[in-house]
């Protein structure tokens, strides 16, 4: 009934987004386990109507929330409570689409199925790395689907992953407040940065959890409970602290800027020096995920989309203002 649907929409949270390989579609996953596919090209075109801002198709993907999604050049991989499912982008728009396969990494505990908070693609090795509630990083070979190894080290569940391309290393940030670097070839922990122990950035009243990570080979930016900080990886020292009070949940490098979003309506744009260049408000009271559509195949759909504690995905055509919002 109408009231029930309205309530559902009011209490919806969009956790993850992913852009299709052709660049024309955007997938968004929410806390009810649904995935919606929006057509960016239709919404951005000049004859866009209200219906273009609605999803082309919505389907129930998981039983629990869809915390993380990535796209390969043919598949959409989504993960939530304990499982990874793969969907074919080519088939996804048809009604009654079924997942191509689903995999569950080997968990130690059986009492509660741990969630998967982050998915990371390592294209060179054709690996998919999953991390989440069981405090381990699992690596799955995309061709065979087998789980190759698991990296242990975190003492509390893992929030986010980032890939350092040059020497293929994975960075993981977790609830225990540490950022750990793992070498993919040796499958060992290489470096640990305990962010909360650094006075400049720690904020004990927020907690010590690391909610977001982004890396640019030599540099890393992370935030969460502690303040958003830019680190120099080799020396493990915080170089810039961004003066943002609210905990940030997603951060990414873009050209020469750092974009971050978290509690609070705005998408923040920072200079590398630590200055706030712009704060662009969105439509959700808190943001959880940012996605930059940089697919070469669709340059007209080059937009920044932000989603979080609402049923809406904000679309920024120009980083200066919010153009419109797609909605579930």
């Amino acid at each position, binding site marked *: 009934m109408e009231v029930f649907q*309205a309530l559902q929409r009011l209490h919806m949270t969009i956790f993850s987004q992913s852009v299709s390989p052709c660049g024309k579609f955007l997938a968004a996953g929410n806390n009810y386990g649904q995935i919606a596919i929006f057509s960016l090209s239709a919404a951005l075109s000049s004859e866009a109507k209200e219906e273009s801002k609605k999803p082309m198709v919505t389907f129930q993907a998981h039983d629990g929330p869809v915390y993380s999604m990535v796209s390969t050049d043919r598949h959409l991989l989504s993960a939530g409570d304990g499982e990874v499912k793969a969907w074919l982008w080519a088939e996804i728009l048809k009604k009654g689409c079924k997942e191509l396969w689903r995999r569950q990494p080997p968990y130690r505990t059986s009492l509660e199925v741990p969630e998967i908070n982050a998915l990371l693609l390592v294209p060179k090795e054709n690996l998919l790395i999953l991390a989440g509630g069981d405090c381990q990083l699992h690596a799955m070979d995309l061709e065979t689907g087998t789980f190759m190894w698991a990296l242990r080290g975190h003492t509390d569940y893992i929030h986010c992953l980032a890939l350092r391309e040059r020497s293929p290393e994975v960075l993981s940030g977790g609830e225990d407040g540490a950022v750990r670097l793992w070498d993919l070839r040796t499958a060992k922990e290489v470096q640990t940065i305990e962010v909360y122990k650094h006075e400049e950035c720690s904020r004990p009243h927020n907690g010590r959890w690391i909610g977001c990570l982004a890396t640019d080979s030599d540099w890393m930016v992370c935030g969460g409970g502690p303040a958003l900080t830019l680190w120099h990886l080799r020396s493990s020292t915080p170089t810039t602290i961004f003066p943002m009070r609210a905990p940030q949940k997603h951060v990414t490098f873009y050209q020469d800027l750092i974009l971050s979003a978290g509690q609070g309506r705005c998408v923040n744009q920072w200079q590398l020096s630590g200055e706030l260049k712009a704060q662009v408000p969105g439509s959700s009271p808190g943001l959880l995920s940012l996605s930059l559509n940089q697919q070469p195949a669709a340059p007209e759909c080059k937009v920044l989309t932000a989603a979080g504690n609402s049923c809406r995905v904000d679309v920024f055509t120009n980083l200066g203002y919010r153009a419109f919002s797609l909605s579930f």
Partner: protein
Amino acid sequence: MSSESSKKRKPKVIRSDGAPAEGKRTRSDTEQEGKCYSEEAEVDLRDPGRDYELYKYTCQELQRLMAEIQDLKSRGGKDAAVEIEDRRIQSCVHFMTLKKLNRLAHIRLKKGRDQTHEAKQKVDAYHLQLQNLLYEVMHLQKEITKCLEFKSKHEEIDLVSLEEFYKEAPPDISKAEVTMGDPHQQTLARLDWELEQRKRLAEKYRECLSNKEKILKEIEVKKEYLSSLQPRLNSIMQASLPVQEYLFMPFDQAHKQYETARHLPPPLYVLFVQATAYGQACAHRKSSQPPRQDKMLSVAIEGSVDEAKALFKPPEDSQDDESDSDAEEEQTTKRRRPTLGVQLDDKRKEMLKRHPLSVLLDLKCKDDSVLHLTFYYLMNLNIMTVKAKVTTATELITPISAGDLLSPDSVLSCLYPGDHGKKTPNPANQYQFDKVGILTLRDYVLDLGHPYLWVQKLGGLHFPKEQPQHTVITDHSLSASHMETTMKLLKTRVQSRLALHKQFASLEHGIVPVTSDCHYLFPAKVVSRLVKWVTIAHEDYTELHFTKDIVEAGLAGDTNLYYMALVERGTAKLQAAVVLNPGYSSIPPIFQLCLNWKGEKTNNNDDNIRAMESEVNVCFKELCGPRPGHQLLTNQLQRLCVLLDVYLETESHDDSVEGPKEFPQEKMCLRLFRGPSRMKPFKYNHPQGFFSHR
């Protein structure tokens, strides 16, 4: 001078000679025979031609003499006088001749005239005679033609034809031998026969008339007999009433109701029929015995039947009334003009007039509470309205916050979604309202009752939404299909409202009444307490800063009821603003939270508050409890207390602040945080009794 005087004397003589001449003549004849000088006789003797000659001569002589006198007078002399005298005497003589001639001429003239006159008179007389005779001739001619054309009356009578006459008439009338030859006799005979026949027929006619009279009298007698039967039957019916009651077969009562029902307007009639049928069907379903007095649904008709009859007066009477009232109206307007407002008021009252009869429905629920519904029909607007009242078996002490729950104005609001009963469902009424300046029916609903859509459907009135409908078709099938659903909805509505009533009484005292069959939903120990439960107004709700989302989503209309609950534990205070939809409990109440503990946390700045709201609003189906679901609100409140407990106990300890945690963790949780938004474990698992994440 003497000639002049002789001239004067002579005309006198002539004139008097004229007319009485004959008289004088006769007298003079008798007196002086032979002595009179009759000039008339002389006239006959003299010749008019000679007289004329004489006249001419005399004139000449006169002229000559005058000339001579003239000469002599001009010449003068003494002889002249004698000459002149002489001549004068001669002229006198001539004068006398002239006079005589004149007299003669006059007499001749007169004679001629007389003669002409006589002749003329004769001619006239003849003429007259002639005309008289001609006239008489003409008259006689006319008479003759008249006589010739005369038609006897006997020819106008249609006589039977000759053949028939000879066939049918008896021989003494027809007298064939005589009549065949003589048409006169024949006609006479035929006339005789005609007369005979007519006499016979007149006889027959009189006989038939008398027959008819007899039969009419018989009919009268029988009629009287029958009419005397009616009162006796009535008295038998009366006598049988006690027997009917004894046997529980109130046919008489039902019959009376059907009688009054005949005067109901069509929509009310449809409602009455359907409701009675449904009531009987329900009673049958409940027990296999014959229908008993205490049905679940009882129907009655209220109001004045006479007034209803008065609405249908025959046209002549109403026309007379109109003319009378018009005359009266004119008088009153001359004396005191009613103001425009008063006139408009009267027109409004006229438009909103109700039919004098109304149908009363009593719905009995299991716990002996009764919902009284009175249905009215507004004649000019063609809609039905309803007034509701709830009575309970025991007297209810109304808690302050439950004021609106059972109020007649709002107890039936939104029985079907969106049916708030404040606007007239008949689109045609808008045009009528414009004429008399009524803006909306909302101002009059307290007085007239609510025109809900389901009421119209029960009465078989169907209003399509697009165009105004001019004729109203009352449809039994529409009413029948709606009756059952509506009755069920009404019962659930009353019961849920009564349940809420009881619950509110307890909530106001700070106790959340959780029934025993819902205990499994909550852990055994709940520390947070409900401290306050009050009603708030709709405007106050929309002003709250943490309810903006609900208002924007359009879920906070003015048909809902609003409440504020306060849950406390230690220093933490949780405010919950509740929207109660009239369709409770199929539509869940909506909670919006604001926590005051170490700062103000709402769903805008704290994901966990959002999660708590979601637990109560979105996952309400688990909280419904046993079937009718009346426990939903209390279960939601209890869950809210549990959630607050979990929230406070699982809050991570701030290392920088000294001192122990205000709320030690007593709940069993597998994990404290999960997912990118670091959710607390709000889901309670029964019977293991631990908390986990959804």
